[in-house]
């Protein structure tokens, strides 16, 4: 469904030195499969999501949606093709109601809105007429971010740390939500054990590159970050 070939993305630091974030990634994300992406901070997980969505342009490499080369497609074109994304940090607005955003995403009726909001544990009648602004708590905003992604629908779902900001009580519901998208292509950045356990494949990104494989094998390769535990010379 989504096939990336030799995908690379780099940034330049203050000294104008190039730093590779993604290097020669070639992966085929299949329909009906959940691929979890994990790895240390700064390893390029969110960058990969943003590159697939068209928010970041790769240095080289290609991205295919089915057999369509979408490497040069805009964000809007990719959204219309059927790629949906829920960001790690919800983006709020001033003066725009949740109802309007769900409508923009694709909800056609109150029932549609109710369905999407129920799946993220929110009651539509309490939320649709509220503004999607900074008066919402972080957890509420995050759930609405997910609800918009569900209302948008499509064939490919990109979730960037959907568990971040959601209370632990809700993680099981989040797992069910993801599992219920079973015929879709799910690419999900997560550090949450319960989410990694429902993945078909796990992609580990690190400074040395990447490794992808079946969940049962890859889970054993996820290691806690090692620190030296020594401050060094203190002057």
């Amino acid at each position, binding site marked *: 469904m989504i096939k990336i070939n030799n995908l690379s993305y780099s940034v330049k630091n203050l000294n104008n030195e190039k730093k590779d974030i993604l290097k020669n990634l070639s992966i085929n994300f299949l329909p009906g499969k959940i691929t979890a992406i994990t790895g240390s901070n700064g390893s390029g997980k969110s960058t990969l999501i943003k590159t697939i969505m068209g928010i970041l342009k790769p240095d080289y490499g290609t991205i295919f949606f089915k057999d369509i080369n979408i490497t040069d497609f805009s964000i809007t074109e990719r959204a219309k093709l059927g790629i949906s994304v829920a960001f790690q940090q919800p983006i709020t607005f*001033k003066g725009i109601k949740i109802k309007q955003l769900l409508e923009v995403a694709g909800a056609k009726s109150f029932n549609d809105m109710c369905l999407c909001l129920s799946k993220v544990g929110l009651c539509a009648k309490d939320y649709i007429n509220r503004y999607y602004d900074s008066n919402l708590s972080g957890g509420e905003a995050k759930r609405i971010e997910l609800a918009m992604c569900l209302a948008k629908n499509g064939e490919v779902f990109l979730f960037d740390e959907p568990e971040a900001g959601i209370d632990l009580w809700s993680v099981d519901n989040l797992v069910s939500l993801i599992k219920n998208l079973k015929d879709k292509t799910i690419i999900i950045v997560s550090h949450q054990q319960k989410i990694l356990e429902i993945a078909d494949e796990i992609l580990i990104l690190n400074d040395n590159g990447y490794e992808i494989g079946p969940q049962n094998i890859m889970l054993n390769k996820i290691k806690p970050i090692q620190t030296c535990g020594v401050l060094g010379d203190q002057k």
Partner: protein
Amino acid sequence: MNKIEQTIYNQTMQLTHQPSGAFSLRVNGQSAKQKSTNNIIIKQKQQKNGIDVIIKPNTQNESLHLPVILSDPGLKDSVYNDFYIGDNANIKIISGCGIHNDSNLTSTHNGIHTFHIGNNSFVEYIERHIALGLGKKKKLNPKTKIKLGQNSTLKILTQQISGVSNSNRITQAKLGENSSLIIEEKICTSNTEEAISNYNIELNGYQSSCKISSRSVAKNNSRQIFESNLIGKNKCFGHVECDGIILDKAKMYSTPKISAENSDSTLIHEATIGKIAGEQLTKLMTLGLNKEQAEEIIINGYLC
């Protein structure tokens, strides 16, 4: 009213008919229709243009509509309206002025409104300003003077929707003990329009409070100036928040001043001016909108 006047009426009043309740319609510098009620008495001023509105004490949940229409090009109309609102009242006043001008002549409306609000009253005041037509000189200068009594609240929503070439909005208020003034201002300018807003609020009363929230959008080559001065003269609270979205080659100047003249006053000011946040556009584009559609939704929401 002809078709143009009806359009102005509909947009400023957000109504298609004459509402129940007190009503005063002014068309091209003349009083066209007036209706008082038992509790809201409208009297024509004798010495100058305008009306005195007397709202009796204990008037509850009544409304007053004051549409003003200028459709004769080149007309300069100044009107002085005084509102005397008694104690323990709860009232909604909807005022609006619209100009239509297709000519090179200058149309100007100066609306000077003075509020004398008694004690323990709640007043909601909505004013909408628009200008239509191809002419480039359509000026609206609303001046609002307020004296707010003890334990009273005045909530103002002022909107300049579109088409006004020049506006100079002046608001002056003196707040009594435990009174509260809440102002929401929404202004959108485009082309070469210029909008100036100036607020001077004196928080005189013990535990008086004022909150000003200004949201504005400046497009094309338009220019906006926002100036406010919240003056704390007692134990009081004041907050001014000024957000501006600037597009194209527009210019925007914001000076939310706070002046504490009493050590128990708490005054806060915030001001931001910037383009539409890129991440907001991105979010809406991930939902399938193009950039122009995303901008429109963000601006409309911002000014709603």
